[in-house]
């Protein structure tokens, strides 16, 4: 067993870029404290590399050739693609883990037809989690992307299968590996409805993760998700993949729907790795 940590982290450009616009600074600081605890947990796990199961926003992939799943196996990654002043994260180079990532990709391919990429640009979907979790950008990162931007979308059952395959690949390695899934639950980002959050839907989704209710987690249809959780809700794929990789129940360490300027309900959680 070499998956030494698995967790969930929300991402949103506002979490860094609009931190100064938050009215409820107490809630914001509780979020930041939870993220700092998560940083510590990853560090304490002894992880030698961090897999980030992300849902990117057109940093690498476009509709000319959109992979459902892609693993970054390059020597390094760069980001953010966004204006650093807007995101409030400086442009930087992040170490990759080419040998390990290549071996993981090879193993995952036994059951899931992924793409791979030796070049990877990170947008806020990866940069914001890393800003909090590996602020010195000194931990090798293996980015993995699930297309959550729009249809045709990979089914939730395949996101689960992808997570299981990643886990199998981790177990076949002698390296200590941490994994986070990063997405939003319900949200309507980058629309005039930015800040809209369906808290009840979020809490029900987190409850399904906590109960390890796979059937319930995979039962959402994309049209229901779009209706109840917005197009941002398609990103539950990253959480489902992380749950499948972990194999144990989710422990929600922090959740708030009270930071609408961040445009997402903010979650910090860890899984028992079984």
């Amino acid at each position, binding site marked *: 067993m070499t998956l030494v940590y698995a967790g969930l982290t929300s991402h949103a450009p506002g979490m860094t870029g609009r931190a100064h616009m938050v009215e409820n600074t107490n809630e914001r600081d509780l979020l930041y404290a939870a993220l700092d605890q998560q940083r510590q947990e990853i560090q304490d796990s002894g992880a030698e590399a961090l897999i980030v199961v992300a849902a990117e926003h*057109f940093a690498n992939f476009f*509709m000319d050739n959109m992979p459902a799943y892609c693993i970054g196996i390059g020597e390094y990654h760069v980001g953010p693609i*966004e204006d650093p002043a807007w*995101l409030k994260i400086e442009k930087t180079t992040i170490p990759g883990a080419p040998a390990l990532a290549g071996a993981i990709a090879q193993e995952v391919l036994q059951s899931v037809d992924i793409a791979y990429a030796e070049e990877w640009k990170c947008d806020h979907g990866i940069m914001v989690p890393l800003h909090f979790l590996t602020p010195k950008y000194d931990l090798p990162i293996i980015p993995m992307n699930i297309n959550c931007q729009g249809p045709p979308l990979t089914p939730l059952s395949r996101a689960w299968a992808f997570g299981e395959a990643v886990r199998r690949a981790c177990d076949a390695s002698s390296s200590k590996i941490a994994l986070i899934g990063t997405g939003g639950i319900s949200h*309507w980002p980058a629309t005039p409805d930015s800040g809209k959050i369906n808290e009840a839907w979020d809490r029900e989704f987190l409850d399904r993760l906590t109960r390890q209710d796979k059937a319930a987690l995979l039962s959402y249809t994309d049209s229901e998700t779009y209706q109840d959780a917005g197009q941002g809700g398609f990103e539950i794929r990253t959480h489902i993949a992380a749950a499948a990789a972990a194999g144990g129940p989710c422990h929600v360490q922090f959740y708030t729907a009270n930071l609408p300027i961040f445009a997402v309900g903010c979650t910090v959680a860890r899984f028992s790795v079984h």
Partner: protein
Amino acid sequence: MSLYQVQKLLYNLNRDEQCKEQYTNDKMTLLRSYDLTDDEREALSQGDIGLLYVMGVNGQILMHYAAFLGIEWFDYLELMRKGITEHGPVRAGVYAMTGGGRSFTKEREIS
């Protein structure tokens, strides 16, 4: 309608420094290298966030473009609402406005 081409231009612009340079220094050459309608070329030339939103440009692509143009957060949200008032509902994609134009964030003056 060549929404795909509009988005492709913005995708490249958002992630590529050379493309940003060209947009800044020689916008017309950049715009000519994509298969755009006159309306689309005009919207991109003007940085017309409202119209591009209504055309159905993916919100993430449009948000990064608005940031590149230096548009402040609440102005950007307002430009999308204004686009809907002027041009009608979003015509394509999954980034439609669902909240009737109301704000879901408490707005505050920033010093």
